[in-house]
């Protein structure tokens, strides 16, 4: 799987356009970080299967990704984990019985600050606000 393919798939899984996930002038390199985690945590064969399934879909959209990937018993857990990374900046262990305390982890400080869950709800990651004194007194711009 290429980084570009990963970003295309991520765009459908997250609901955000590719250019938000991987901006032209990408100072944060969040997509690279998540792509690296995917390649570290998931075996090459499964990633290849994810790649071939996704690239074989003509004009992929949410409906086709749902039936062929998210609902697939092998690929679904991987797709869900990719979505969780984007939203929460955490890689969750694929083995729910694992007792290894390091199997689930925050990918990095930079990705934490870019977690999509926060901006989606018009907030900021706890501990990382770029706004000014008193901004909380008025509702955020939800446009």
């Amino acid at each position, binding site marked *: 799987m290429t980084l570009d393919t990963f970003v295309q798939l991520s765009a459908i899984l997250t*609901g*955000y356009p590719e250019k938000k996930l991987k901006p032209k002038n990408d100072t944060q390199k969040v997509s690279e970080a998540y792509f690296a985690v995917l390649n570290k945590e998931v075996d090459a064969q499964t990633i290849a299967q994810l790649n071939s399934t996704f690239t074989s879909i003509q004009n992929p959209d*949410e409906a086709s990704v749902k039936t062929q990937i998210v609902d697939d018993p092998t690929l679904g857990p991987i797709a869900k984990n990719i979505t969780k990374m984007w939203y*929460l900046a*955490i890689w969750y262990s694929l083995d729910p019985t694992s007792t290894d305390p390091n199997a689930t*982890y925050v990918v990095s400080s930079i990705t934490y600050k870019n977690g999509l*869950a926060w901006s989606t709800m*018009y*907030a900021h990651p706890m501990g990382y606000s770029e706004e000014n004194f008193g901004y*909380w007194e008025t509702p955020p711009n939800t446009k």
Partner: protein
Amino acid sequence: MSDSNTQYDVVIVGGGWAGATIAKQLGEAGKKVLILEAGNPLQSRNREEYMDSFFHAMAKVPSAPYAQNYNAPRPSVLDIKPLDEYKPEPNPVASIQKNGYFIQKGPLPFASTNERVAGGTSWHWLGTCLRLVPNDFKLHEKYGIGVDWPMDYDDLSPYYDAAEYFIGVAGAVDQQNGIHGITFTEGYNYPMQPIPPSVLDQHFSNALDGMPLDENVIKVTGTPAGRNGASNKNWKTGKIYSNGRRLCQGNTNCTPICPIQAKYDATITLSEALNTGNVDVMYQTVAYEVLMDEQTKEINGIKYKQYETKLGPVTGEGTATGTKYVVAAHAIEAAKLFLMSKSQMSAGIANSSGQMGKNLMDHPVMLAWGLMPEPTFPFRGPLSTSGIETLKDGAYRTDRAAYRVEIGNEGWNWPTGSPYTEVNEMIDNGIFGSELIADIQENFTKQFRIGFLIEQDPEEDCFIVPSATETDNLGIPRPEIHYDLSPYTRKGFEKAREAAAAMFTKLGASNNTYETQEELEKHYAGSVFEYNNQWYNFFGAGHIMGTHRMGTQASDSVTDANMKSWDHDNLYIVGCGSFPTGATSNPTLTMVALALKAADAILADW
């Protein structure tokens, strides 16, 4: 620097809130001061490094930025579990890793935590700076509950003024004045204007102000806080107040750490103390015994052990000496230190009353949470900016605990681990893409929670003692804690739940609070209890009080109103452990006011 040639006027155990405050006051008055600090030096990690630990922590609990130090360990809320799951483990490091620092003997676990590092628990405080209300000082006289303080509101009021400038508090006199009889010195104003209310606060205010509850009426007020807001003119000098630090940026992270130090913490005061040139600190120096002169009963030394790394061995031992001694080691550690000092007094130093370590109190917290009828946009602003202070006193206190209400700006983060828990659940259920965005926007923007900080009456059977068997990595006994919530306090929970339900109805909000035994045990195993056929959970507020209480007589208290030991003329014991009763206001402001009072008394007693 150990047993150096400097003759110290005062030896202080603990470089946190109270210790740093007194060190600064004494240092400025020209006294030579030595602080023994159990934890790492001020300069050992910078704020960015602590933030990095926080960002990487899976559980963003109060201790998340601060690594465990097995030579000066601290408790963690992650260690709270059912009592039968605490398993003995001979190796102290393994035991702390498995069971946590506290040896919990129950019947309920003690749920609050502190930090052991230069600056102390001020690193992770919320910032709330509420005064006690006048009747909090005379709970026994008014309501027949607990004991009275050896002072009243008017005695402490000037020290509150001083403490609010010492910390740098943003607040409004006209909001606090008159609440249950609170008064301010003529002409007084806070150093800074109040922190603006959040969108949620305004909804609360609009919906609930004027609502009667029991014998009181709800009024939502901005919470005075040690966070930087717009400056006022100093009421005495007329000069614009400035502490040189940044305005609050609303990082929603006061606990566990303010990323920009817009919130006051005691490292500021400790640095100022050091800058007087009269204060020295020995870091990584853990006091373990207080010694006295057998004839005069005056304290004549404090024995300590030193270490270099958090897992390393003892690297030094010695005895710190001075003319006077101040123990400011936090309520649990201070009491433990005196109770460990048994070689000359079988019941421990400063313990002729038998009260040392007893009357351990917290503000057990009951959370209630739901969804507002329209978005109020949580996870924006400081963690809490308003509260309800008008329910804190009344004739009901003969019968049940009082509470204050804190309005939270962090959605369901505290009770459920939001947004992590819910986002995980959504994605596990197959939700993704545009539906995920819509669901998050629909649900999270309406999340809110309130916290009831419930009064805990002082009880002899809530106490700490040094463990007879369990130690830290230096071989120093760990605190063994016996803790429960009295029927008086439990009834406060019952009334708090009723109050939450009434408020949520008035707000038009859903009530999503876990209230069944099954739900509570599933989410909060270990800190669940029953009262009057209802089930509850409690959280710690981090307000550890009562273990060396002040009083009017030596027979039932540890110190007098100046926090001077009844037993030893040159010994002062300060911090939240001095509180005879806990009331409902977050204790820090009162603790700093008391530390300033003790500093005055020490200087006057020279």
